[in-house]
């Protein structure tokens, strides 16, 4: 693996990503391997949640990282490397969804809540199941916020829309989840609410 600690005095993740990407610009395969290892778990999780299929997610992950290899020199540093990479993943993921017709485009918001009754959920997947009842646009905002930990500025850059659109989508997604999630995980929500000061 590439040793970037000598090249950068900033050990923070963003600084490390940037240092690795700079080495990738110079066609450094070891730096690319290090960058791949850093992004693989998060990117795989993100793509698997988006595509609902592990094999496709792995393929798209390679597509994303190949773009990173080819276009590393095009990175202008206007955002964090992770934002740039997730932006590529978002577009590749949407393209894969379209190709495989897994993409239930802009899912009807009038989805039948009754369909959730009797839905088998486990303590681990009730949120994941709930998210599947959101439109792709809304699901992405929730995913990138709660699973990805991105700020609204970063999400706007990833998705390629204005910040206010991100906030609006989040507002509608929250309203939708307020209806959906109690049917899936009401006990857990209530339990957590009890901890709020």
């Amino acid at each position, binding site marked *: 693996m590439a040793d970037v600690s000598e090249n950068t005095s900033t050990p923070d993740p963003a600084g490390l990503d940037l240092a690795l990407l700079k080495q990738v610009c110079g066609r450094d395969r070891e730096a690319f391997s290090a960058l791949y290892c850093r992004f693989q778990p998060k990117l795989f999780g993100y793509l698997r949640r988006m595509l609902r299929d592990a094999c496709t997610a792995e393929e798209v992950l390679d597509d994303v990282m190949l773009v990173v290899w080819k276009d590393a020199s095009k990175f202008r540093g206007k955002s964090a490397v992770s934002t740039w990479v997730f932006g590529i993943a978002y577009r590749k993921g949407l393209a894969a969804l379209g190709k495989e017709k897994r993409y239930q485009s802009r899912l009807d918001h009038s989805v039948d809540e009754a369909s959730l009754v009797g839905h088998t959920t486990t303590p*681990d997947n009730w949120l994941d199941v709930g998210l599947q009842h959101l439109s792709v646009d809304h699901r992405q905002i929730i995913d990138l916020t709660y699973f990805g930990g991105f700020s609204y500025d970063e999400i706007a850059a990833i998705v390629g829309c204005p910040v206010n659109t991100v*906030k609006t989508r989040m507002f509608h997604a929250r309203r939708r989840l307020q209806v959906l999630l109690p049917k899936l995980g009401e006990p857990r929500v209530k339990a957590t609410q009890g901890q709020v000061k």
Partner: protein
Amino acid sequence: MLHAEANSLLPWLINGSLEHAQSEAVQTHASSCVICRKELGQLRALQTSAEQFLASQTAPAIDMRRINQRIDKLATPSRLQNLWSVTRSNIVARPWRFAFVAQSAVVAIVATMVLLPGARAPEFRTLSKPTAENAQRLIRAVFSPTLTLAELTTLLGEQDLALYSGPSERGVYTLTTSRPLGVTERSAIAAALQVDDRVLFAQPVTAQ
């Protein structure tokens, strides 16, 4: 901070991505707003669930063989790419030479199209246009508009003629003899026709 603005930022307060000042302002508002406090609880539950879900998920073992193969493929361009690369560099280095070659190629193509006998457009012919073979039988004639069909049949029968085609837009008939004749013989027949007042014009057809 207004309620609407603070409320819209709650998810990012929970995931810890707000800037310090913004975070302080949202927290201050939430401490005095029942609605935001309630929503904070719900959003914390979401965040906790997301973290639990992430912890339960495992990514597959890292296998870089496929992507390394794809990168290797990128590094070794195909023969076609090599050829194009050489051609492109030649065009960039010597544009005038490329322009001369391209112009010569265009001239060669046009010259081939013009000079090749097979490339000529087919000659246009009408049905009544005489050929060398049937020109020896044809006579052109114009008849009086008062001439009836029976009179025309009689007139042609007297001279052993038959109708070949016509009338044209200008009222010209093409007549044919029963056998090939020379110009002199057909001129005699034409002259015989013109004796009749109902024949306005008669002349043998000559091959072109």
